[in-house]
């Protein structure tokens, strides 16, 4: 039984929230057509802290109406003006960083430390990044011959639908909203059911700087609000982050309307530690140890969670001894306490799902090197959703090695040769993230080159800077985010083929 390392600071005060929040449509807060709201439960203590509007088809239609109306002007708005709006959003988020960070913790359960250091700064930088790239954006022109000119002009798609996951509520919304608005599209966003509040507070802050209807947010349940949105014949594209079955269903709906989709569906990312990592017990070795413990970031609720450790068998003992020690030192506690490293899982069903995987792991013969059970916290946290960070030792065919647990659980196995490491790394249905740690100059390029994943971190992990394209291979989805190339996910090309020749062809 692992004893828990507990955080020591007192939690900071919760931000004040309203009793309930409406939709944000056409620049205003609009009550749900049904008049109904649903509880938003904080994972900190399993108790409701506010309510969200229960959206339905009528609300979605109003939002699409507002977006179409706004598109008439937004699509003609200059890049300089669009850039100014995005920069203003970034400034406002920066001015309100602490409040938004505490709210994100309250909504999602993640440690405040992470919201302050990662979620919010990344959001702010993301809006600034797209505000910057759109100023330097150009289309292209070529002279085919003396009389013929071809213009390939980027045009915004129109009104798009964006369905957001709950693991980084503000950041995931930002990754979708920023490029869409930069490209000149108007959007209808549906936040996740678990985390419908932080984005509404953000809308309150930016309502006056975004032209009405450019950005609309409708909260609600998937089958009631998400489905009418994804299957609407008045949207030009759907962008989605979530799970595979829902991704397939969204593609189905999109196929009925022949519209494009992009989606990111998760992963079972391998973190590979080559033999040279342990050549010295120096600061790089320490960095590699931290790299392995990164499975605990955001309570493991990250699509790219490095949930498989692949370590060279010759260094297993020396490396894993330190990894287990570092994992046991992770401080758990109240998510609003400033030194808490790992907070609560986002909902009761996520918590139960993780526990069921701890069970199946043990049944399959995986050995828990630490953790392996729920975390019993007190001081008001008894009914929150806390799980101890867990390391399972086993082999790559076990279900815990293949399925996304989405919790603070990592599975470790060993390899003898580089070929074996690559084979195990690629033996998964997914291909989102991967990590490669080595001191060897050849391995640093050749191993990542052989891994079938859209993001391979080399001697680092869990960095998501703007201007580094991010997305999946295989069942992790398709399409990318975080790079100016992605403006093209929200645009189509109009080719104007112009003849300056006055003479007819001679056909008719």
């Amino acid at each position, binding site marked *: 039984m692992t004893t828990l390392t507990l955080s020591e600071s007192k939690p900071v005060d919760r931000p004040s929230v309203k009793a309930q929040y409406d939709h944000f449509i056409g620049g205003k807060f609009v009550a749900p057509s049904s008049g109904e709201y649903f509880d938003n439960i904080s994972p900190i203590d399993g108790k409701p802290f506010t309510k969200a509007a229960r959206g339905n088809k009528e609300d979605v239609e109003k939002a699409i109406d507002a977006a179409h109306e706004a598109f008439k002007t937004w699509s003609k708005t200059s890049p300089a003006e669009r850039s100014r709006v995005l920069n203003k959003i970034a400034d406002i988020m920066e001015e309100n960083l602490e409040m938004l960070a505490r709210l994100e913790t309250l909504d999602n359960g993640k440690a405040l430390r992470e919201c302050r250091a990662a979620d919010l700064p990344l959001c702010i930088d993301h809006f600034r990044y797209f505000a910057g790239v759109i100023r330097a954006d150009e289309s292209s022109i070529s002279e085919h011959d003396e009389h013929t000119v071809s213009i390939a002009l980027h045009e915004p798609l129109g009104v798009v639908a964006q369905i957001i*996951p709950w693991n980084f509520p503000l950041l995931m919304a930002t990754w979708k909203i920023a490029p869409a608005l930069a490209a000149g599209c108007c959007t209808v966003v549906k936040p996740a059911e678990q985390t419908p509040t932080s984005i509404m507070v953000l809308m309150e802050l930016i309502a006056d700087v975004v032209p009405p209807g450019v950005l609309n947010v409708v909260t609600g349940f998937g089958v009631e609000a998400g489905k009418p949105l994804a299957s609407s014949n008045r949207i030009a594209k759907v962008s989605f982050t979530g799970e595979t079955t829902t991704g397939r269903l969204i593609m189905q709906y999109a196929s009925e309307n022949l519209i494009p989709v992009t989606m990111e569906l998760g992963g079972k990312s391998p973190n590979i530690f080559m033999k040279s990592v342990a050549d010295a017990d120096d600061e790089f070795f320490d960095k590699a140890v931290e790299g392995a413990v990164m499975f605990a970031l955001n309570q493991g609720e990250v699509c790219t969670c490095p949930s498989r450790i692949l370590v060279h068998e010759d260094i297993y003992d020396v490396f894993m001894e330190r990894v287990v020690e570092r994992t046991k030192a992770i401080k758990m506690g109240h998510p609003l306490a400033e030194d808490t490293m790992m907070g609560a899982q986002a909902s009761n069903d996520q918590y139960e799902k993780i526990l069921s995987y701890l069970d199946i792991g043990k049944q399959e013969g995986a050995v828990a090197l630490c953790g392996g059970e729920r975390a019993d916290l007190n001081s008001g946290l008894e009914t929150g959703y806390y799980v101890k960070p867990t390391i399972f030792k086993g082999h790559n065919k076990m279900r815990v090695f293949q399925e996304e647990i989405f919790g603070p659980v990592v599975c470790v196995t060993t390899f003898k040769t580089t070929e074996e490491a690559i084979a195990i790394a690629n033996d998964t249905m997914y291909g989102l993230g991967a990590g490669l740690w080595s001191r060897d100059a050849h391995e640093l390029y050749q191993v990542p080159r052989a891994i079938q994943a859209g993001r391979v971190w080399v001697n680092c992990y869990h960095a998501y800077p703007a201007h580094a394209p991010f997305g999946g291979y295989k069942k992790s989805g398709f399409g990318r985010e975080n790079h100016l190339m992605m403006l093209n996910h929200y645009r189509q090309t109009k080719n104007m083929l112009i003849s300056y020749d006055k003479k007819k062809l001679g056909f008719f």
Partner: protein
Amino acid sequence: MEVIKRILITDAAKEVIDTLRKRFGSELMFHQSGGCCDGSSPMCFEKGEFKVGSQDTWLGEVYRCDFFMSADQFEYWKHTQLTLDVTPGRGSSFSLEIPMGIRFMIRSKLFTSEELENLNPVTSGEERLSQG
């Protein structure tokens, strides 16, 4: 030994299915999702809503609902018996029970070597659909 079912169900889950059948006026189906967020959990839809085909495996019927998962995922699951259960929660996705404040989930058990000899045969989604 009698044929062993691959998918079982708890009474609590049966009650939820009954409620949903009434609410939607239709038979239901399940597809086990992989992936992040609400993945690694069964999704409940009205029968026919979610298109299955040759790349899906039909595990059997549970309380009159067809239960599917993708064939490549099934390769890793085929040695385990699944029980469809519910738990209070707040899920995302288009699964039908979500507005009720509960979530379907799967509990798993390894088959014994004896059970492995006597399992209910599976077919592809495409074959299941053509059976009607």
